[in-house]
């Protein structure tokens, strides 16, 4: 008689068994899974409260299997502040895109970070507004064509793409600030560790944690899913360097 089969890969408990609305090849699915795995691994699902943004992941609450609030555009860190201050025993995270976090929500993210709110921010940077149909984002690369930068992003007109992880790492309060990418299995494994580390530090009440995940938007970029991963590796990782910009114990700003 053989031993019962032991699964080596299955859906995390922190995700619901439900098809998503995301486009084929979009890396939101991977990012969702990394967050869910971290909650599972650390046993945090039943204490977790997520905050969904406005953007493609506005419906994230349909996919995660934990409590959720849905914020106004850019305000997720303010909601997270209210939740965590009201119920300090919960594990609070925001899941935000680049338009939400780095444009309309710039004040909320910077000040939540600066207050050292004991929350985790998962920042999905794919250099474009996906939900509204591929408009220019604050992180759109120089020369990148979008529906509102049809001739390519011109820094003379609209400035340069904002590097959020570096910006946040100049603040004193945040304890963990990192940028990872979801373009290859190796990179995903490193991103998985980073997301887990952020939630571990929150569970230990260390302070504000920020994980930027370089992602894709095959539909908005006008590329196939495979081409999008290649483009991300080549272009995104060139302008947005990966790394840990701040780790626990580094009280001063980490960006040198």
């Amino acid at each position, binding site marked *: 008689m053989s031993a019962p089969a032991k699964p080596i890969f299955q859906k995390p408990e922190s995700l619901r068994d439900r098809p998503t609305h995301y486009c084929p090849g979009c890396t939101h699915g991977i990012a969702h899974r990394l967050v869910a795995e971290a909650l599972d691994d650390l046993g945090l*699902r039943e204490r977790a409260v997520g905050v969904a943004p406005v953007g493609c992941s506005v419906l994230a609450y349909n996919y995660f299997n934990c409590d959720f609030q849905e914020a106004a555009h850019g305000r997720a860190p303010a909601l997270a502040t*209210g939740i965590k*201050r009201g119920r300090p025993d919960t594990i609070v995270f925001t899941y935000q895109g680049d338009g939400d976090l780095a444009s309309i929500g710039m004040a909320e993210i910077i000040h939540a970070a600066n207050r050292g709110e004991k929350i985790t921010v998962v920042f999905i940077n794919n250099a474009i507004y996906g939900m509204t149909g591929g408009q220019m984002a604050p992180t759109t690369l120089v020369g990148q064509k979008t529906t509102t930068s049809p001739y390519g992003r011109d820094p003379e007109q609209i400035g340069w793409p904002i590097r959020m992880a570096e910006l946040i790492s100049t603040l004193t309060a945040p304890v963990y600030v990192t940028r990872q990418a979801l373009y290859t299995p190796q990179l995903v494994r490193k991103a998985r560790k980073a997301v887990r580390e952020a939630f571990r530090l929150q569970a230990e009440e260390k302070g504000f944690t920020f994980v930027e995940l370089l992602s894709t938007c095959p539909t908005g970029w006008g590329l196939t899913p495979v081409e999008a991963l290649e483009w991300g590796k080549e272009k995104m990782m060139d302008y947005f360097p990966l790394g840990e910009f701040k780790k626990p114990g580094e009280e001063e700003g980490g960006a040198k």
Partner: protein
Amino acid sequence: MTRILMKGAEAVGEAAIKAGCRHFFGYPITPQNEIPEYMSRRLPQVGGTYVQGESEVASINMLFGCAGAGVRVMTSSSSPGISLMQEGISYIAGAELPVVIINMVRGGPGLGGIQPAQSDYFQATRGGGHGDYFTMVLAPATVQEAVELVMDAFDLADKYRNPVLVLGDGIIGQMMEPVEFPEKEPARFEKPWATTGCKGREPNIVKSLLLDPYALEEHNRKLQQKYERMKREDVRVETVDLEGAEVVLCAYGTTSRVCRTAMERLKEKGVRVGLIRPITLFPFPEKTVQALDPKKVKFILTVEMSLGQMVQDVKLFTEGRIPVHFFGRTGGVVPTPQEVVHEVLKHLGKEVEK
């Protein structure tokens, strides 16, 4: 029970604490800074949390998060700051969250001035932000009443799962009056919908997004039923000497006190004058206005610190049966009793003293 002399703004803060509020998020703006200052001093003493937000926009969204987590929470601001909060108030109304918001109204539009006004009536009683919703609006006329209404506001917010606005003005906030704090335990409301972590239950979702138009229509109808229930169960109004009145003044908050003084002088002149003082501006005490007898009441004079906002509701609910006149000062100017007397005599066609 002891009576103590207290500034309106500080009394509002203490009333919130007595009502079980332990969380306050806000941003400084004149003329209500004594409220956040009081809360920043008092909340740590009672195990609460005061956070100064980076803006009114952020502060109201902190209220969203905190109320969504099932915790009593309040903010205070003044007119330009309340305008900035309208986005969040709309989302809070949509998500059906109980919050209390204090507006110590100052003159507008724009940056306006910092003197007392009642020119946010439209904004307060018509929802204020986008969408099909109303906030409940309470208008105190004294510091004592501000205390009682702030305490009640938390219960009403929980009863209806709806934002409750306390509409004061710079005078209510700045004035010192004797107050007594009612000794009562904060009411407890079960909040099984709150995001407290999903241990032992299915996940809760707090949101205002309903992409299916039929679902959103159903949701909005449900909100509407709530507003209708407010009209049935929680209209508050004070009436003075309506019996036999030939002239009825209508005023709320600070201007109602101006009217009370004017009434004394009018009575000395033999004018039979009464007063309707709405305490809830939404729901408006429409039945009180409708019940006035056109055969006895010559006209209604609405007095406001604006150029005519509540007067539209008075006209709406009078339905043309009784003439409605208006007198108001604006920009931070407070009407005087003498001006009100003058207006009444003018409309009565009597000799007006110069």
